[in-house]
């Protein structure tokens, strides 16, 4: 029987190329979050609107069998999907508070950055990996159920021509979901990088969101006009979402201010992250 040396042994394997290191970070982060029961419960609850809308689709197509009539204002067009994503913004917000506030703050608190950057990863790998974690969950409650609803819609309709005519809706769902994932994710990471305390980071993000809503609410009351909607983070998403879905605007404002505000927020978040996360501090 051979006797093995249980001391140090050299590794004989060949290292993988470095392009997918961000994916390692994303996968580990997603894995750690889904192991938390509270987060899983939150994820399931956030999919309740999807189940309700799935039921509405079923009721729309099989109302005769169900002896059930949907209200006359119900329309099965692009606004059906836009409304679904619009209401998912709330769950995105809750999910960001729960999962996103600690993503960088906890790494700062536990000196994890020196572990990350002593390995062959770049700052952009780290940021993409962390953004990937938030992006995964945001897309899981927007893009995935949105596309599933669209698929169910097409299956129930059973009309190939309808699929060709309405395929752009699937693209709109993708674009709106990606926009919310990217900007919200960057914003949350930037707030998370400001502090070593994840609760504080979450609180600041909440305050920012609430403050922008309050400013808009105040200006709307004073001016009796919705042209100040670009002051509100949420309304900027909604305004761009309306444009993506080709819907008439519910705000008295063109789309470009919202695009500008979201672009500036995204760029500012990226700069903050680049400034706060410095690999050179790996050795203190």
């Amino acid at each position, binding site marked *: 029987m051979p006797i093995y040396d*249980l*001391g*140090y*042994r*050299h*590794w004989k*394997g060949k*290292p*993988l*190329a*470095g392009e997918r*290191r961000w994916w*390692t*970070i994303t996968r*580990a982060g997603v894995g*750690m979050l889904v192991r938390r029961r509270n987060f899983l419960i939150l994820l399931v609850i956030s999919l309740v609107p999807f189940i309700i809308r799935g039921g509405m689709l079923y009721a729309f197509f099989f109302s005769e069998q169900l002896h059930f009539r949907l209200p006359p204002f119900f329309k099965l067009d692009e606004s059906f999907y836009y409304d679904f994503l619009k209401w998912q913004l709330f769950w995105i917000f809750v999910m960001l508070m729960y999962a996103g506030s*600690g993503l960088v703050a*906890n*790494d700062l*608190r*536990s*000196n*994890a*950055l*020196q*572990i*990350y*950057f*002593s*390995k*062959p*990863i*770049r700052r952009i790998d780290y940021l993409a990996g962390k953004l990937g974690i938030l992006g995964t969950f945001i897309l899981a409650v927007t893009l995935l159920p949105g596309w599933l609803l669209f698929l169910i819609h097409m299956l129930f309709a059973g009309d190939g021509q309808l699929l060709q005519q309405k395929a752009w809706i699937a693209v709109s769902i993708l674009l709106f979901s990606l926009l919310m994932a990217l900007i919200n994710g960057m914003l949350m990471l930037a707030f998370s990088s400001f502090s070593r305390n994840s609760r504080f980071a979450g609180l600041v993000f909440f305050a920012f969101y609430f403050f922008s809503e309050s400013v808009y609410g105040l200006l709307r009351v004073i001016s009796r006009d919705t042209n100040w909607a670009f002051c509100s983070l949420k309304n900027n998403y909604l305004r761009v979402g309306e444009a993506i879905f080709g819907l008439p605007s519910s705000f008295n404002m063109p789309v470009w201010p919202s695009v500008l505000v979201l672009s500036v927020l995204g760029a500012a978040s990226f700069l903050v992250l680049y400034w706060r996360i410095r*690999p*050179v501090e*790996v*050795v*203190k």
Partner: protein
Amino acid sequence: MIIELQDLKVVYGRLTALDGITFRMEEGATGLLGPNGAGKSTLIKTVLGFLTPRSGTAFAFGMPTEHHAREIRRRIGYMPENDGHIPGMNAVQFTAYCGELCGMRRSDALQRAHEVLYYVGLEEARYRNIETYSTGMKQRIKLAQALVHDPELLFLDEPTNGLDPKGREEMLQLVAEISSRRGISTLLCSHLLSDVERICPRVAVLHQGRIVTQGAIEELRGEQGDIYELRIKGEKEPFREELKKAGCRELPSHNETMRVALPSSWGPRQVFQAAARSAVQIRHLVPVRDTLEDIFMNSIDGGEHADL
């Protein structure tokens, strides 16, 4: 040659952190010494590819550090001085994750994590959350994450910090074994000179951004010449002058005892003769072996105190 720095200058704004240093690290263990602010961290950052030299060249494994930073970091294991971990992970998850970040396949990283944790003595605690670890265990997990991808060079920053005597002894044994028997070169930064002396056959001493001494410790001891510790009764200054004229060097000493390096032509007899000429009595004269602390103190204080 593992690391080769040639006339390297690194600046932060107006501050020159490394001022034209030339340093060659061969295979095996090398101690990097220097007081706080000497430039040790800057040197490590430069080798890891985080800083771009203002002038001169920095090579690791034959590659310029500024252009091949990731490849170099893949071949280096770094054990930081400060505690660091990924929140929410146990030791196996953490070590395997570090392996994956270095490019190992998931299955390889997991297998390797178990092996390395066994090697550093954490096999019983490997499924415990790292946040619950004691100081000694945290030092070991830092060593494990530095070793998981089987590096060719280990940077160890104060590896025995905060350890009790038994833990320190075990850590030193591990580091000594890694550097001497496992073929992993080691650059050890420590303020505990006895640790460095025990592990490293070679040292480099940094002071104010310059390398003031480097080489094999045995050779550096030889450079000091024969060293004697002596106590005298009478006026010290004439005696000092007498020794200085003969080419003796006084080494830094912590008490009333003088430490003197004699030239090769001198021995105890000549010291007694010098004492007689300067009218002092020698009460104590013993040959001493130069320690790393002497080499270090002499290097950094050399310009100010060493010469008589």
